[in-house]
């Protein structure tokens, strides 16, 4: 199951901001297509900087499966 930043290439404008700011250098840059590529998804720290800074809302950070469970109980 893919996790880390998922790029929606239909919305991506190729502005490079995700590639520039990622604190853990997860993205590479495809010079031919002028688009970012996720090269190191397991080095994603789920900080959400790319998702937050993407003006096209083209990125969603996805947690790995073991972190997608609820781990909470309703008490009220």
């Amino acid at each position, binding site marked *: 199951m893919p996790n880390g930043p998922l790029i929606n290439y239909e919305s991506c404008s190729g502005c490079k901001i995700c590639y520039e700011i990622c604190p853990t*250098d997860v993205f590479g840059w495809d010079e031919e297509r002028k688009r970012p590529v996720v090269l190191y998804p397991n080095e994603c720290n789920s900080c959400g900087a790319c998702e937050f800074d993407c003006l096209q809302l083209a990125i969603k950070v996805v947690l790995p499966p073991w972190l997608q469970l609820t781990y909470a109980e309703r008490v009220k």
Partner: protein
Amino acid sequence: MRELENIVDEVVATDVLVIGGGLAGCFAAIAARGRGADVVVMEKADVRRSGDATFGIDHVGLRHDDPRISPVSPKEAARKLRENPFVDQRIPYEEVLAETYDRVMDLERMGCKVRRADGSFIRTPGISPATVLMMSVDQKKNLAQELGRLKVKVHNRTMMTDLLTYGGRVAGALGLNTRTGRFILFRAKAVVLATGKATRLYPNHQAPLGGFVVQGSSPACCGDGHAAAFRAGARLVNMEFSRYTLTPKNPAWWSSKGSMLHSKPPGLPEPLVDSRGRLLAELVQEEKGIDMLGTGGLYRKVWEMLKDGQGPLFYDMTSWPEENQKLITLGNVCERPIVLRYLRESGIDYRTHRVETSSLIHRCLELGVSGVKIDGQCRTSLPGLYAAGDIAGGTFFSALSGAITWGHRAGRFAAEYAACSELLPVDPGAVAEGRERVFRLLEGTGNLHWQELEKTIQLLLEDYVGAARNEPRMRRGRELLREVREKLLPQLKAANYHELMRSLEVGNILDVAEMHLLSALTRRETRFPGIRHYRIDYPHPDEENWRGKIVSLWREGEDIRIEILPPDQT
């Protein structure tokens, strides 16, 4: 100099070089520039979203003589700090603590929202009455803009690989651009180290398949500065102390935890409950001792309970007043907005749900305690080298207030030093050696991936140092770490510049691991409540021999020297 230009791709000369562009590094650069110095910042990621803060930090401790600004005066806070026998009494804490307010106002001038429209602060009194909310998710962006405005030269995506010395003084540093592979010599009259805390020493159970996934702190802060300072001969202190943390289990993850603690109604304990809803704080007999570091006793209890299979444990904020629950959300918005989506998608609401805790996580070495020893002017033991922020050791003053305050001080004093110093010569042999150390990882015949070596070191520390430490295990661990250095380290192989950065990081993690183990082996007592340094063979504090004694270590040639000293002699 001709010769040097054949070894490196670029030579940069400046008055003050700041290594690390997080909160402390940015403030150091701004302060040094404000004193007329030519300033260069070297940053491994990008200053707009880097450092441990990434966006910024949602709370800051303010001390002020005006009770409308802070109920705690700098004098009073300093007096309290000085009661701690591990504090260096030479540090002018009254002055240092009073500066935090000025720095927060600096952030406001740069565009960060720190007060309501009527000029008042929002208090987040959970841990201290002096703490207020920082209402800005763009602290780092505002700082980056300020660097641009002041014409500070920023080298993003540039990792410091070594510090350079000449005649026992710091002459600059070597840097690798991790995108282009350019190898740069930075010559500087003064250097400020602001590379953050030392993380990634122990296994990350949130990332069982390797990598980072959700690290308690930014994984970029992994002790590059600690290791380089050590290799250059600077003194480090208190490297035995660990910061363990307990967080709500994902997706209500760690960022929520800090916000949660600061949002707590004052006087209430950390809202940890067992599966029957009993408050753990009430079950715990607080250990006797000086707990200047917070929640020690409670975490020791949690550690024991989880070790004995007594979970699940929960954070339960459902009975808090609504305003405190709202503060958690505000904190999340300001520090790490994505947390809100993670919470929403999993259907977790703090008002109605109790959230399961993770196991105890070794987050980093203890903040403001472990690190490169500084004095009140942020000077390290190496002339010309300054340190600030989370890398600075023995200060007992860290996080956002520590970063911006020490950062600004380091920049000021480094600029003053630079103003009456010359650029030192650089030894081409040392530069060539530094380059060879880096690039042989790309060219060698090894086949060890950085993640394999990182995991090896982490498992080793967990098994041979860990939360419950004893002499025979640590002695074995020391031998095994030596074996890692001799047998495994030379086999590291990087396939590209990104992996080269990671491989260099793992080399640094090995250096920090060694300092951690040696310091833990040296301190033959248990110190500080909780599991910061718990020796099962010396299970109690030894007040007679160890009270107010600091383990200080440094390198002399190939030898590691260790001294046990009172804090004001380190």
